[in-house]
Structures are given as C-alpha cells and as structure tokens.
C-alpha cells in the first residue's frame, strides 16, 4: 500500500513536470499546444544523445538535462519568434492546426535524426538502486522524482506570485494590449512563456527518460495524459495541475490494481466525474473567453 502510494506520487510528479508547461502556455498565450508532447519527446532524445557521448556519468546525465532544456528553449524561441507570433491576432483556433503541424514535423524529424528503433537511458549513477525508507525499500530515482515535483511547483509558484515577472505574466494572460501600453514588452513575455513551457516539457521528457523507452510515438501517448491532468486540475492553474497529476497517478496505479485492464475506462470516467462535480476543474476558474 505504501509502495503503491509512492508509485502514484512518482508517476503523478513526473506528469506534473510535463503538464505544467502546457498549462502555463495555455494560461498566458491561450494556445492549446498539441506539440507539447513533441517537446517532451525531443527532451528525452537530446538527453539520450548526450549520455551516449559522455557514457553513463553523473555529469553526462545532469548536464544532458540542462542541454535538453536549452535545446528546447532555442527551438521554442525559433518557433514562437518566427511562426507562432504571427497567429496571435488571427482566428484563434487556427493555432490548433499550427501546433498539429509541428507534431507532424517533429515526429518525422526525430525518426530521421535518431532512427526508428527504441533507445534506452540508464539511471544516473547513484540513482539506479533502492533506498531504505524504514518501512520498505524504494527506488531512489522515483524518490528523486517525488521530491522534484514539489520543488518545481513551489519555485514556479514563487516566481508567479511573488515576483514582478510573475505579475507581468499573470497580467499578460488578462489583457495583452493594455499591458503593452503600460510599457511591458508583451511580445518578449509571450516568447519567454512559450520558451519556459517548452523547457519544462523538455525537463519532463529528460527526467522521464530513464524509466521509459525513448522511441518515436512517445509524443502521442503523453499528450493525452497531459490534457487529462490540466483539465482535471483546472486550465491555467499551477496547483490545479499539481493535484490533477497526483489524481491521475493514483487513478492509474490503483485503477490497475483494483480494476485490472479496465483501468483504461476508469481514468476517463474519473475525468468525466471530476468535471461534472467541478466544471472548471479542481482549482480552475470560470473562463471568460467571450468579449
């Protein structure tokens, strides 16, 4: 039972790290970024490339994570600066087609660069085994995931709520034009948010990589989980996606244990149930998307 709870948390925290970027981007840019899964995938692949060169060293792994985030930041900057930016004042939904196009392109590029076969990354040195927690032994890397989730959540929360930067980001999601008339370079804010969201996806991908096969198609699987997390938690809400991720983690693990292969149905029933109980998600607010 204890192990299962820990498992749920580890899964949930990993999902949170990936999904929080999605909710951040949606919260400010109002773009539903289908390419978020693609960013996740690139993160994992970049880490793979780095580790392949450096061998299984600590520096290789942790440095690779940083490289993965930087690469994604750069890609996201290019995408935002030269393409996405031109769509903000166009028909809103067309951004969906845009991000869908990105998914297609990245899908093929990954196949071209890294080949069609699956790859695997070892746990970083010192994280491959289990740690004694008194009650039982538990995989060290998963403990690390469980701890890194709240760290990222709290840091993001501090940035958003307690810094001027965060206030500007929150204002940008409310009224972009007015903010610009108040002397804030909103274009740069949008760029920064998109880049930050993509870097978080890359971080999530890199952190998840040692526990997964790095292979084409991993983008399509993760994005739907991210959607569930973000919707259950409440669109655009940081803590919402935190708790949404934990709920999905619990539902997946305990769903499998209790309902076996019917877990597939359970997760969606749960999502429907949450939305019926709280239409705007756990911590979401009513969307004023008209006017």
């Amino acid at each position: 039972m204890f192990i299962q709870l820990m498992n749920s948390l580890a899964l949930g925290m990993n999902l949170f790290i990936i999904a929080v970027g999605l909710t951040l981007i949606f919260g400010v840019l109002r773009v539903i970024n289908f390419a978020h899964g693609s960013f996740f995938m690139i993160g994992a692949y970049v880490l793979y490339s780095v580790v392949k060169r450096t061998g299984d060293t600590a520096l290789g792994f942790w440095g690779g994570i940083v490289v993965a985030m930087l690469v994604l930041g750069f890609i996201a900057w290019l995408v935002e600066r030269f393409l996405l930016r031109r769509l903000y004042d166009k028909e809103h939904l067309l951004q969906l087609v845009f991000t869908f196009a990105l998914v297609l392109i990245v899908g093929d590029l990954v196949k071209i660069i890294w080949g069609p076969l699956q790859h695997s990354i070892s746990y970083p040195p010192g994280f491959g085994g289990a740690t004694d927690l008194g009650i039982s032994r538990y995989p060290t890397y998963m403990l690390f995931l469980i701890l890194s989730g709240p760290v990222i959540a709290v840091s993001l929360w501090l940035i958003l709520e307690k810094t001027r930067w965060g206030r500007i980001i929150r204002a940008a999601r409310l009224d972009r034009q007015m903010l610009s008339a108040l002397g804030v370079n909103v274009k740069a804010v949008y760029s920064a948010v998109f880049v930050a969201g993509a870097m978080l996806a890359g971080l999530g991908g890199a952190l998840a990589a040692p526990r997964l096969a790095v292979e084409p198609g991993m983008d399509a699987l993760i994005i739907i989980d991210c959607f569930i997390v973000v919707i259950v938690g409440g669109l655009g809400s940081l803590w919402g996606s935190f708790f949404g991720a934990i709920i999905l983690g619990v539902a997946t693990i305990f769903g499998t244990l209790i309902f076996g292969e019917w877990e597939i149905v359970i997760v969606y029933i749960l999502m429907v149930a949450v939305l019926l109980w709280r239409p705007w998600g756990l911590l979401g607010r009513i969307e004023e998307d008209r006017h």
Partner: protein
Amino acid sequence: SMSADTIKIGVLLPTSGGGASYGIPAENGIKLAINEINQAGGVNGKMLEYFIRDTKLKPAVASAAARELITKEGVHVLVGAVSSGVTLAMSEVAKQEKIILFAPISKSIALTESKFHKYMFQSSANTNIEGRVMAGVMKKVEAGKICATGYDYAYSHDFFASLESNLEEGMAIVDTFYVKLGTKDYNALISQLMGSDCDTVAGLIWGGGFVSMVKQANPFGLFDQKKFVWGAEVGSHEMSNSLKGDYPEGMWANSYDLWYSPLSDAHQAFLDDLAELEGQKETNMYPVTTYNAVKFLAKAIEISGGTDSDALVTALEGMAMETPLGPMTIDPETHRTETGEFWGPMKKIEGSDVLRMSPAEYVY
C-alpha cells in the same frame, strides 16, 4: 520509374510514429529480396517493383491505402502489415478485390481461422504455435506456477490460451495480469508480479513497453525474484542493444532472427547481404520475415507464369521453399507456414555490454 511490365508488390507497413521501429526494418527485407531477384533476371523475365504505404497503425488508413495500391498502382499482390487489427482490415480488402495478402508478421489466428478466405496467407508463427513453443520452454525451465502478463488485446489473450492448453502436467497459469496497450507506467504491474506466488513469469509486453517495464522493475529487484520467460521477440538484438546492461540476465526470450547465430551457410549468406544493405553488421530481426514473404510470392508467380490471383493461390498452396531459416511449406488447407523463432536465455558476454541469447535454439 519502371516500365508497366513489372510485377508490382504492394507493401503496407507502419513507418511513422510508434510503428516505425517495426515497419522500417521490415521494409529492408522486401528491398533485399527484390534486389536479389531482379539481379538474377527477375521472375519470368519481369522485374519486381514494390510500392510502400504507411499504415499509420490505423486499420481504416491501411484499407484505403491497400485499395489505392490495387486500383491506382495496379499491384499484383499485397504484403503486410504488423498489427493484427490492421492486417485484418486489409484482409477484408484483399477478399473483396481478390488480391493475395501475404502476412509475414501479424500473429493473429483470426487471419487464417475465423476470418479466413482464399486470398489470405500467413507466414508468421501465430499465437497457437507460439503458445505451444513457449510451453516447451516452460518445461525446459521447470516453470512450476506461472503468472502471465501482457497487453490487454487479442494477441495476449489468444497466446495465453494456447500456452495454457499446451502446458505439461504440474504446471499452470495461476495469475494473469493484463495492462492496457501503450501503458508507460508499469509500477502497478510490477507490484502485482512481486506479490504473486508464482515461480515463473510468462511475459508478452513488447517493444518500447518492454524497455519501460524492465527499467521500472530493475530498482525493485523483480528479476532476481522469479524466472522469466518472455515472448514477443524481446530477445532480439535490437532490444538487447537498446537496454544494454539493464537487460535482465537469465531471462528466456525469443527473436525472429539473430545476426550472431546463423543456422546455416544460406542463413549466413542472407545475413551478410542484409548487413551490406543496412550498412551495419548487427542486422535487424524483421527483414527475414518480409524477405521470405517476397520469395514465396516470387516463386508462385514463376510457377503460375503470371499474376492471376487464383493461379497464384493454387501455386502457393502446398508450396515448399528453402529459406535462410530452413525449409518452409505452406499448408494447402490453412494457408499457413510454420515459421520458427530463436529461443534461449539472455547472457552477458565478455567484452560486450550487450546481452546475447546463449545458447540460441531455433524452434517451432
């Protein structure tokens, strides 16, 4: 491109997304077979040509592409696909259009049982055979109480049914744990396996899922607890290559082909040619399956003297052929040929960080 007077083979394989790791290597087998045949002067003086379409792992897409290949490109036979659902959908098109569909990879028994029709041929080891083969392995490892695990879909269900019915006295499946197809998190399953009092685990989780499962189970020490017999071709070189030292040592696993374990000179020659085509000594396991399929079809065309489907069916029924993996014969009743697979325990080899099947035995 080539003249209208070629023999055209329509190939349907997943080449994008999650299916690419099967489809793209499988295409190499087609290329190799066609190159060989064309260099030897073709079939009855005609060159072979193939047209490949991505199934995108979607049955409806595959059906439409199959129809397009037949009506637009005018292909004479079809080869494919990987996943059973997709192959079944294509089989329906083959039936309507009266074009042979040769399935070298899909293991569904429905193809040649409940949904059987005249134009359907299958050269993979289907779940009936695979289950029987695995039962043999179980005997070898003295499996005792078995718990079975696999993705929740027809392949696993059929497979375990066959395994169960072929098990020796004193062995039985005591627990069965299905997980949803495409699962990324195996922690619940790992706990269930660790909690079960079985002696041996019979596994069918394949591809990237197997990688994830192993990576997640290693820190828990799952693989030290029980014996493991794993189907679904996770014994392939590709798989051990990607997992390297993380691969659970001692696990019994299988593979369509092994570049380091030639069965014969003919097999070695095939592997050498493939190595040249792929530009790597350590070749993939899928090419041999599609290679054989093309060879069968080419021979049937040669014998029947044309591309008329009905004549081809007649030629294929009962056809025997030497293949890199030894002699194969198509049963005239079931339209199937028994393909074996390499089975053996995975061992660390000195001087390499990749595990190998040792000893590898070709069984069917």
